[in-house]
């Protein structure tokens, strides 16, 4: 039980750090959001009075007159009540509503693509590591090319070849705009058709890392005594591969899920931009270009929470899969 308590404790600290970071960034950095917005307003010919300034400061939730500590308590209080402020670019929509609209797109896309990449990479890695010396194995270093390819560039190439030249997939968007979003077969098929290209990008760009990690662990697991014992017992190679070698070799891949998820989320933010996908990433970039600070912070918070949550689940699962972690702590 101690293991789970420790893990929960860590995630509470991480959550607090993320919240505080989100609070501190706008206050620590040189640019003042209120000034930037007012400058924009002035450029468009608006008049700036002290009242406008105050109104903007209140709108952004950064009331300068209050001491920092009170601002912090207010900020946390608002978060607890699920109040992330009002979005400027989608005025008068609440930030939470804007996020709720775009979150499912990203969660489904990144979720499915990551699981596919992980399963594919781990399976391939297990087979390649199982038989070192085959022609497949000597091609392994070439997968580093896939790992070093920038996500968005791969997206551009795929879009060029598969969408523009071959015309198999639509170039942009999340679904056919003539359809109404809803739970009907036609809409879901359209969403799958539009999501295939972004998903393919994420899978291709992240499968190499999984493959490599699994293959390296497989190689070191194969020289363990228990694998030798299993072989000596006369177990069929398939049983040894499945129940002895890959099971143990998979552990670091599971633990590494945390780090790779962060990378995938980062990559998909920009990939969504290439495909104008209606997910979180596109909204985040839109918020940045429109100086929509409340939306920006809200999105960052939601992305961080999602990654933290996924990590927590993986960590708890890891404790179940590998009893040693529980015994050690």
């Amino acid at each position, binding site marked *: 039980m101690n293991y789970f308590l420790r893990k929960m404790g860590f995630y509470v600290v991480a959550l607090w750090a993320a919240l505080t970071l989100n609070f501190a960034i706008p206050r620590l*950095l040189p640019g003042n959001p209120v000034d930037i917005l007012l400058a924009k307003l002035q450029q468009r010919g608006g008049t700036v009075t002290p009242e406008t300034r105050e109104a903007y400061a209140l709108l952004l939730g950064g009331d300068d007159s209050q001491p920092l500590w009170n601002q912090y308590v207010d900020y946390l209080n608002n978060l607890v009540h699920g109040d992330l402020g009002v979005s400027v670019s989608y005025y008068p929509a609440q930030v939470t509503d804007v996020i709720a609209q775009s979150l499912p797109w990203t969660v489904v896309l990144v979720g499915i693509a990551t699981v596919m990449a992980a399963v594919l990479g781990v399976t391939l890695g297990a087979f390649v590591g199982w038989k070192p*010396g085959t022609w497949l194995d000597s091609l392994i*270093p070439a997968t580093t*090319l896939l790992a070093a390819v920038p996500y968005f560039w791969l997206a551009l190439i795929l879009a060029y070849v598969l969408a*523009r030249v071959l015309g198999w997939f639509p170039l942009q968007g999340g679904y056919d705009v003539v359809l109404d979003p809803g739970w009907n077969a036609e809409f879901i098929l359209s969403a799958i058709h539009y999501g295939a290209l972004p998903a393919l990008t994420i899978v291709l760009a992240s499968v190499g890392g999984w493959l490599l990690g699994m293959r390296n662990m497989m190689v070191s697991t194969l020289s363990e005594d228990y694998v030798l014992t299993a072989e000596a017992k006369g177990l069929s190679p398939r049983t040894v591969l499945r129940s002895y070698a890959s099971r143990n070799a998979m552990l670091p891949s599971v633990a590494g899920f945390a780090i790779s998820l962060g990378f995938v989320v980062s*990559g998909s933010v920009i990939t969504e931009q290439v495909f104008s996908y209606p997910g979180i990433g596109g909204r985040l970039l839109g918020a940045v270009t429109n100086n929509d600070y409340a939306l920006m912070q809200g999105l960052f918070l939601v992305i961080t929470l999602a990654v933290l949550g996924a990590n927590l689940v993986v960590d708890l699962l890891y404790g179940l899969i590998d009893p040693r972690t529980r015994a050690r702590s």
Partner: protein
Amino acid sequence: MTNLSPANEPSLVDEAEAEEVARDRAGGAPRSGWRMLLPTMTPWLAVGLVLVGVITLFGIFGPYLVGDPRQIRDIGLTPPSADFLLGTTQTGQDVLAQLAYATRGSLQIGLLVGVLATALSAFFGIYGAYRGGFADEAFSLLSNVFLVIPGLPLVIVISGFVPRESRGLWTIAVVLAVTSWAASARVLRAQTLSVRNRDYVAASKVSGEKPWRVIVVEILPNLLPVIASQFVFAVIAAILGEAGLSFIGLGASNSATLGTMLFYAQNGFALSLGAWWWFVPPGLVIALFGMGLSLINFSIDEIINPKLKNLRQHRRRARKAARLERELARAHRRSRPQEPDAVREADGAKEVSAR
């Protein structure tokens, strides 16, 4: 989280030593001292070195050999030709010239961030683990927290708050370094923990050496391969991160990197106009440079984990054995053409060798 590798370490060292001894007996000279820290040459390492070397040279000397990357001509979007080896952009700018300057910019920022991130991770990883106690707990908690907070969204938010005018090269470099040091700090911490309790470190401490001296003289040399490999990773991550940031228009202002090239290509509708010569080269340079660095890292990994080297040698032996087996079978078949048994026998032997 668990680190499974330290448990294997003693046997690894033994195997590596056995390998050395075996080579010694075979007549080859043992590799001594600093030579042990250099990787063995393999075809893939050669490929990596060539890729990194060529791209670095292109970044250093390329800009002197090409024309002005900003010069606008009235030949927009011409495909590659003898005059313009990589064609022109929408406004008739020479893509090759832009590529040369952009490569230089990307390499600069990669190097800068690589150094900064490695310095940060070395401080948090090595110093914390060396001091132990509260400092270690605090530093390792800090790096774990930074590890689970997704980097790029954080960088985007930070860049969004910094006004465009004050978003210089150094700002971007510092932001990228601050968000990317955590993973290597963890690796370095694990390594330092295994080194810091060795006898010679204890002896040095007992004889009254100052902490910085113990770290720099006694501990650091043991970590050099690990630091080198982390540095290489940091450079790749930095170049990729900067490219992503510039691609969405949040990079350093007035900088020319491969990311900004892709930004202009995307905003100039290179994709829908079919101008592949505009957006393919910048990404390819990033991918090839990253691939080269990863291949070099493979060889550095072999120094850190000698088991991988044994594996490579084992694999070479297996390949050689399989080849011999095949030749033998062929010779067999040639000498006794009408004997099906021989083939079956050879196949059986092959299977044994494949095991």
